[in-house]
Each structure stands twice: as C-alpha cells, then as structure tokens.
C-alpha cells in the first residue's frame, strides 16, 4: 500500500529538464574531442545552455594547427580493430605512419555520417549559442596565445571563472 503511494507521488512529480551543461575536455585524441563536440552540439540543439571548457591536451581540439588533424591511439588501445573486426596488433600500431593512416580513415568514416571536421563543428556549436572556453593554466603551460586558438573560442578563463559559469540548480558538469 505504502509503495503504491510513493509510485503515484513520483508520477506526479514535475519534470525538470536540464537547463545548462558545462562540458570539460581534457584529452586530445580524436575520440575524446569528438565526444565533447557531439555532446555539446547535441545540447545546443536541444535548447540547453552550453559551455565547453578545453584544458590540457584537450586544447589540441581548439588549436588551429592541430584541431583538424587529431589522432586516435593505435597502440595501447584495446578497442582498436582492423577493418573487418580482427584485433589490431599493438606492434603494427607502433609502425611509423600507421596512426596517421588509421586516424584519417576514421575521420573519413565520420564525414560519411555527416560529422563535420573539428573547425566546422566548433562553428556549429557557437552558431547555436554555445560558448567555447580555453583553460588559462593549460594555455600558459603549452605557451599558446589567443590567436593560436580557433576563432570560435570566446576567451581564456581560469577554472574558478568556469565554475562561476556552472551556476543554477539544473546544471550538469560533464567531464569527457
């Protein structure tokens, strides 16, 4: 009897949709950056306020020089498969040029699914009102300047400033 009451109560409970997401990208591999971009763009498309914070190696995803040439690891990546599904030998992954070839193949496959290159993906996110930030500490560490970063980057901010942007009780922080 009591259980039933609780169920009825929870059914009555008002839905509280997410209002804001703050996504942190700290890694620079193809899959880490794309996970961030897909989640950020998806949030913008759902009308959710979106802040994205790139830090450490994640900065590769917003650095003009590197953003469209990201790699996926061919060594130490147990999920890596050959075309056809056979395991990808780590020894092979270590040969010069293999990682580059595999990564460009992956980018081509993503393009077929209408996943844009990184620079265009960033534009899509900001076109919908999402905001891209770079981490000040990491930018200093890698000796980068604002002009080295994509034009879609709003500003270089500290982690404290980032947390200030994460206010609101319907906000989620996602670390990819």
């Amino acid at each position, binding site marked *: 009897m009591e259980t039933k009451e609780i169920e009825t109560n929870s059914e009555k409970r008002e839905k509280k949709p997410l209002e804001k997401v703050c996504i942190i990208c700290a890694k620079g591999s193809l899959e880490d950056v794309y996970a961030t971009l*897909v989640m950020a*763009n*998806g949030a913008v*498309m*759902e*009308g959710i306020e979106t802040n994205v914070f790139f830090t450490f190696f994640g900065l590769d995803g917003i650095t003009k020089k590197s953003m469209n040439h990201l790699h996926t690891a061919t060594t130490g990546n147990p999920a890596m498969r050959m075309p056809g599904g056979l395991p990808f030998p780590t020894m092979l992954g270590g040969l010069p040029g293999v990682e580059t070839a595999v990564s460009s193949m992956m980018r081509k496959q993503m393009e077929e*699914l*209408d*996943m*844009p290159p990184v620079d*265009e993906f960033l*534009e*899509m996110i900001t*076109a*919908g*009102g999402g905001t891209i930030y770079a981490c000040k500490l990491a930018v200093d560490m890698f000796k980068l300047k604002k002009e080295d970063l994509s034009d879609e980057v709003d500003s270089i901010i500290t982690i404290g400033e980032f947390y200030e942007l994460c206010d609101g009780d319907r906000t989620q922080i996602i670390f990819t």
Partner: protein
Amino acid sequence: MAVKTIAGVQVNVSDDGYLEDMNQWNKEIAKEIAKEIGIELTDKHFEVLNYLREKTSAGEALTIRKVGKSGIVDIKELYVLFPKGPLKFSSKIAGIPKPTSCV
C-alpha cells in the same frame, strides 16, 4: 499513437506530437503546430520546411549541417528561425518524423 485534430483536420501523431504520416500535412497544420511551440511562420520558415520534407521523401537522414549547406539558410539563421530546436521543432512543424541523427 494518437489521433489529434490540428487546424480542423484529424491527424495521427506520435507520443511526442510528430505527424505519423507526412502526407496528412498542410500549411495550416504547420502554422498551428508552430504556434503551439511559439513560432510565427514566415516564407523563410516554409522554404526550410519544404526542404526538410523533400529530403525526407527522398529517404535522406537530416542533420542541421545538411540544412546549413542547403543554400536556404546557414546554421545560425536556422537557430534564429527555430530557436532551441533547429531540427526537432522544424521537423515537427514540417510534419516529418522526429529526427534520429545526433548532429
């Protein structure tokens, strides 16, 4: 699935309110669905809606990127026309199924 009367026409809609049969759609239905969402339709809106319907009829999966490259609107303008739901709201108003793509 449910039956709903929109603009005086009985149509089949999904649980989310998307038309089940895109052939039941007309401009008046579009206007009414748009009004529910809070959008006043202009000619530019209809250009986008017609594009979405054409692509859907052709069996193509839709993404905002594709609409952005259609020559009708860029992505920024698409967001202006359909705030907070560039693909979701436009599909709903165009009488086509809920988008299944993630970009």
